[in-house]
């Protein structure tokens, strides 16, 4: 119902209001004036975006918003998180309810062009997978012809699922739910033979099942899912800030700068390090921020690798390997353009 409310609110705003912030005021100015960043996050996906029992939001996507807040306010706590379902998320961003959407969202051409939104940078290279019960004795997704598959609607997963079954000439019985939680619950109750979502999500959601050892993730990755934070189209300064927040976290990892040694690195003689941390040059001010913006990010949140390992990698219950998300120097795809 909340999704409907958001959609109706958007319709009303568009019909009755003049364009709220985008045309006259920049997002950065609005965020600074408000004193906090409003970040659309998942809310139910362990490792990526979920409040813990004390109400503190944690996760890989959450840390990304904290990094933006750190860059602007020098305080990673100045973020308000808004939990969104897959169906709500774009409407919430379009209507100005949130400043940035950091919620495992796939970058596609149609989303980039027709929603009035821009995708900033690929923070996680993902792909769609399937989870099934061990008892089903299925070892490949290609054996799933005629199976019932639970899926969250309004996702690329829903579309890829139909594509995959179609291109492999298998018949599909999909059951779609508004939220991932409902789809997962239906899968667990036996309504479906398989559950499908991005494989990063599968790892987290498998752990939420009553007995995770009874379920396996099938080896097939059936799609490309480049996950990216999203901003409104037309505010280029804001897009740059969000994009470069990701890039400096990558660059910091590549340069060996982390939470622990960032203060020491301020005295480094390496020109790349000095530019990144704002010791040399006015790169931060060019973005509309302070020159130590990247230092703040690394000091408060850490580099890309630290955020990855802490939330979804070896330091977390999910134990996801870096794979495609390793640095380009280590055989992965994560590559940060130079700060200069």
């Amino acid at each position, binding site marked *: 119902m909340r999704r409907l409310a958001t959609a109706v609110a958007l*319709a009303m705003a568009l019909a009755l209001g003049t364009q709220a912030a*985008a045309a006259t005021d920049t997002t950065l100015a609005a965020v600074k004036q408000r004193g906090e960043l409003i970040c659309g996050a998942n809310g139910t996906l362990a490792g990526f975006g979920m409040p813990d029992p004390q109400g503190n939001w944690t996760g890989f996507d959450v840390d990304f918003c904290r990094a933006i807040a750190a860059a602007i306010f020098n305080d990673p706590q100045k973020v308000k998180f808004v939990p969104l379902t897959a169906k709500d998320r774009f*409407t919430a961003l379009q209507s100005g309810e949130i400043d940035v959407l950091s919620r495992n969202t796939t970058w596609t051409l149609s989303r980039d062009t*027709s*929603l009035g939104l821009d995708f900033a940078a690929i923070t996680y290279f993902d792909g769609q997978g399937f989870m099934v019960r061990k008892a089903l004795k299925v070892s490949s997704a290609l054996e799933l012809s005629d*199976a019932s598959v639970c899926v969250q*609607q309004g996702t690329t997963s829903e579309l890829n699922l139909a594509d995959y079954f179609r291109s492999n000439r298998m018949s599909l019985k999909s059951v779609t*739910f*508004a939220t991932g939680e409902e789809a997962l619950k239906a899968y667990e109750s036996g*309504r479906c033979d398989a559950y499908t979502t991005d494989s990063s999500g599968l790892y987290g959601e498998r752990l939420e099942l009553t007995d995770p050892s009874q379920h396996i993730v099938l080896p097939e990755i059936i799609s490309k899912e480049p996950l990216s934070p999203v901003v409104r189209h037309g505010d280029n300064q804001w897009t740059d800030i969000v994009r470069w927040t990701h890039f400096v976290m990558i660059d910091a990892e590549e340069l060996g700068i982390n939470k622990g040694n960032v203060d020491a690195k301020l005295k480094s003689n390496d020109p790349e390090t000095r530019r990144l941390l704002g010791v040399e040059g006015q790169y931060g001010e060019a973005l509309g921020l302070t020159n130590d913006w990247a230092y703040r990010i690394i000091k408060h949140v850490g580099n890309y690798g630290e955020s990855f390992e802490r939330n979804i990698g070896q330091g977390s219950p999910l134990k996801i390997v870096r794979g495609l998300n390793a640095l380009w120097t280590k055989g992965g795809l994560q590559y940060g353009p130079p700060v200069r």
Partner: protein
Amino acid sequence: MLQRTLSTRRRLGGVVLQIAIVAAIGGLGYGAAYNAGLNLSRAHIASGFGFWNNTAGFDISQTLIAYSASTSSFGRAFWVGLLNTLLVGAVGIVFATILGFVVGIARLSNNWLVARLAGGYVELVRNVPLLLQLLFWYNAVLKSLPLLHGSMALPGGAILNNRGLFLPRPVFAANFSAVVVVLVGGIICAIGLTVWSRWRHQRTGANVHIFWPSLALIVGLPLIAYAAAGFPLHFNVPQMGRFNVSGGLEILPEFVALALALSVYTAAFIAEVVRAGVLAVSHGQTEAAQALGLRSGQTLRLVVLPQAMRVIVPPLTSQYLNLIKNSSLAVVIGYPDLVQVFAGSVLNITGQAVEVIALTMAVYLAISLFTSLTMNLYIRTVAIPER
């Protein structure tokens, strides 16, 4: 003379005022639409219904008309969702009405236990939020049904498990239509026979037994036609597959849960409406009917209910409208109704919230207005003719 001028002027003033108000509302609507279009293009959000004929690309679990993810359009998905909404609405209304009337009348019963049970039902059901009831029924339905490999085989080749109820699906051969024609003819003849016998009973007092002739007309004739046409009907019996049951007619558990929840919930309100209607009929009517020697069932059917209907129908219409609108809660249990398919998947894939939400609201408005109209026509038939 003066009098007439004044009243004419007043009437003219009223008309001008009304025209002005209509024009203002129309202008406001146009302004809102124009403003929305302008703002959408300024925000670089696609607008218009250009997406209507694009390929949908997603799968829908229950389709009353042919639909495939690879070839069907968003427009087709809209119709699939709309029909699913109408289906669950119609089924819900039928069952809610039956259950509501039974409970409403039972609550007025002289039998202490029956009256208390009906009262308990009403108080329990109407005081728990529908969403919770829906989740309860969905989980109760799903959890209580056997898994696929423990499927219950029902008589006649039907199969029941937590994937749904699978019934043998009738497959009609071409000349089956002849049987239908004969059946309809038989029913029309039987109705004619009934009318004739009533007329004769009123004229002469003689009773004509029409049960057997009617049965012969309605059942016997079509059976003969069916045999003559070479038994043009067979059944596609569901078969167990590796993951699912294939073939047959599939009734999804999501549909059952939603129809059940809507019926049970709305029936509680209808029961109160019925009770109010029956109580509104003066007790003298009942006493008069009993004095004439009518049995209590006849009193209810022939004297009380026809008068009660005039009180019942208007609030009953509201309940029907509520039921149809509440069916949009389908979204939480994965039943592919209009809101789930169109204001859900289609909205999200196209991103065109304004168009999709506006169309969805227009559809619910149209369904509700049509329901109201139908019920208003029905009120006319039960109204007491005034002389």
